[in-house]
């Protein structure tokens, strides 16, 4: 690529952990800056020019203003990258979607609820076309680097599709089921190098579902390991309410 690609970073509703993770590339940051020009990043800088090639967007969409902004970003960006579970699949924010929104607001703000308009938490792809996903909560740094180098080379990044279990087995991790815990790894998209099971914790499903997940079979596994059917689905919903609602219909 002749000129350096111009990169802009945006955030919507989320915890900003993904953006922080982008600042956490201490060992790579200077190399990365060799390849791109960062032109917009509210969390880290003041400037706001309007032109960019690649937009990295964190967070889910949850207010009418979000929808306006994301359309504007899409219009200006050549490549739009959804970063992190909130942006890719709605993430944790999606959990509120299963409860009637008015009730939730009432509970929180009481009579003041009309002060703050809000919508169900949506992934970016529910509103605009997303070109690339970097999954994870927070976004998987390893995957971000792969996507980054791919975009710098002008090629399409490859999205992993197989389950976290594959990576666990490649690393010969002791399966957390063996420790009497449960795990969502069997239906969760890999690409994180089985980060949580590698540290003895169960996979909470933050990278979204594998394509065409066999959810009935997953439910059976969770129930066999001591969860009630209700609890099993709650665990599956943690990051994936939007996706699961979509699969249902």
């Amino acid at each position, binding site marked *: 690529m002749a000129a350096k690609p111009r990169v802009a970073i945006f955030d919507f509703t989320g915890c900003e952990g993904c953006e922080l993770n982008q600042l956490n590339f201490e060992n790579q940051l200077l190399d990365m800056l060799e390849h791109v020009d960062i032109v917009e990043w509210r969390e*880290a800088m003041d400037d706001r020019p309007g032109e960019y090639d690649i937009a990295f967007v964190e967070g889910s969409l949850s207010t009418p203003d979000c929808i306006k902004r994301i359309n504007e970003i899409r219009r200006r960006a050549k490549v739009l990258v959804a970063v992190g579970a909130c942006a890719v699949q709605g993430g944790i924010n999606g959990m509120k979607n299963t409860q009637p929104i008015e009730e939730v607001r009432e509970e929180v703000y009481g009579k003041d609820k009309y002060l703050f308009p809000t919508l169900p938490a949506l992934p970016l792809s529910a509103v605009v076309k997303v070109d690339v996903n970097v999954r994870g909560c927070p976004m998987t740094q390893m995957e971000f680097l792969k996507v980054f180098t791919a975009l710098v080379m002008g090629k399409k990044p490859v999205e992993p599709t197989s389950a976290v279990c594959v990576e666990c087995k490649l690393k010969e991790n002791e399966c957390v089921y063996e420790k009497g815990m449960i795990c969502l790894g069997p239906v969760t998209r890999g690409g994180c190098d089985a980060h949580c099971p590698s540290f003895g914790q169960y996979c909470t499903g933050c990278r979204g579902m594998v394509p065409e997940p066999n959810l009935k079979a997953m439910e059976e596994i969770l129930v066999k390991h001591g969860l009630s059917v209700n609890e099993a689905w709650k665990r599956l919903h943690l990051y994936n309410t939007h996706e699961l609602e979509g699969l249902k219909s």
Partner: protein
Amino acid sequence: MTMNLDINVEHLTRVEGHGNIVVNMRDGKLEKAQLEIVEAPRYFEAMLKGRSFHEAAIITSRICGICSLGHQITSLKATEQALGLEVSEQTVLLRKLLIHGATIQSNVLHAYFLAAPDFLKVGSVFPLVSSHPDVVVRALRMKRLANDIGEVVGGRAVHPITPVPGGFTHIPSADELKELKRRLVEDMTPDLLATVETLKTLAGEIPQFERETEYISLRCDDEYAFYDGDICSSDTGRVSDAMYREMTNEFVVSHSTSKHCRHNRSSYFVGALARWNNNHDKLCDLALQAAEALGLKPGCTNPYMNTIAQVVEAAHCTVDSIRIIDELLERGLQNEDPDQEPKRFGTGVGATEVPRGILYHEYTYDRQGRIIKANCIIPTGQNLENIDDDMKKLVPEILDKSKDEITSYLEMLVRAYDPCISCSVHMLDVDFLE
């Protein structure tokens, strides 16, 4: 002298989350001076309702990626108290080490990446890459090491993996800890001294502004309190963490999706400066020397000095991390199973000092170990009223300056609090009625 003034900074930059600064003055009368929080509310209560105690910390950690470790540890403390789960001394030491790592990383990030561009009059850290490469490389090195503490002990710096109710799912090896210690001694300590030198040259850029207020932090008898302690007010003294509601008194204001707090006065201050004012007697020598060099004095009432207090704390956390690692190595690391057998089901409160101030979580569990009631009060929410009060005092004092200068003073003021707006709109304060 300016008689009419309208300032509206939309989506303030270099802070975590979305906030606007709005100031209106009509005929010399200040009508409005406030930080409006426009971040979309997150509704964590809807998420926590009915969730298992295994998930509480996983979910609340997502309130904020910047403060994820703080939320996690605070949540674990509340859950453990509610369910009667015991943690080992090793667990406590590892948690304190994690908090130090997170505090260093957050304070370094704030000082170098968010605040320093103000002192150097640039828009972001990026121009500094070419103008001050050694400073940037140093900042990155410090941040990396702080994050590596999180990665080695917590499995990940943002949303750590290993801390769970009752202990850890994985503990670091002795070799990993030794390597961290080596870097803390050989890299971090000289980098801190260099940071102090750099800041000394910029000390003149810190605005002179004083406003007396109430300072609230944890306080404990045997150390500079982060993990354990009572709630301590500079006005009213110490109370136990169970009294946190009396210390916070949340209320809704129309210009903020985050609730505000007050205690003894119209507002109070939490964060590094509050901790410094309340606990400076517990700091290690290196930190005290840094404070001395940078002109930070006990009883400081200049909110802009919060950034300096953060650097002083980074020094303390570094020295104390080395001490904790020595203690862990001396004891010998044990593979322990976390205690996850609840002894009771009730209510528990956790209070921890996180980089931006004191953080409270409170949960009530049902007999299946599911959350029926949760409350969480975060530092930035507690500071918001204090920020508004500061602005109301500051604006009239600087009316002789240009509008741009006034704006930049206000932006710097808000940034000095290192506000974490993502956190502040968590909205967790509800009783769930099943």
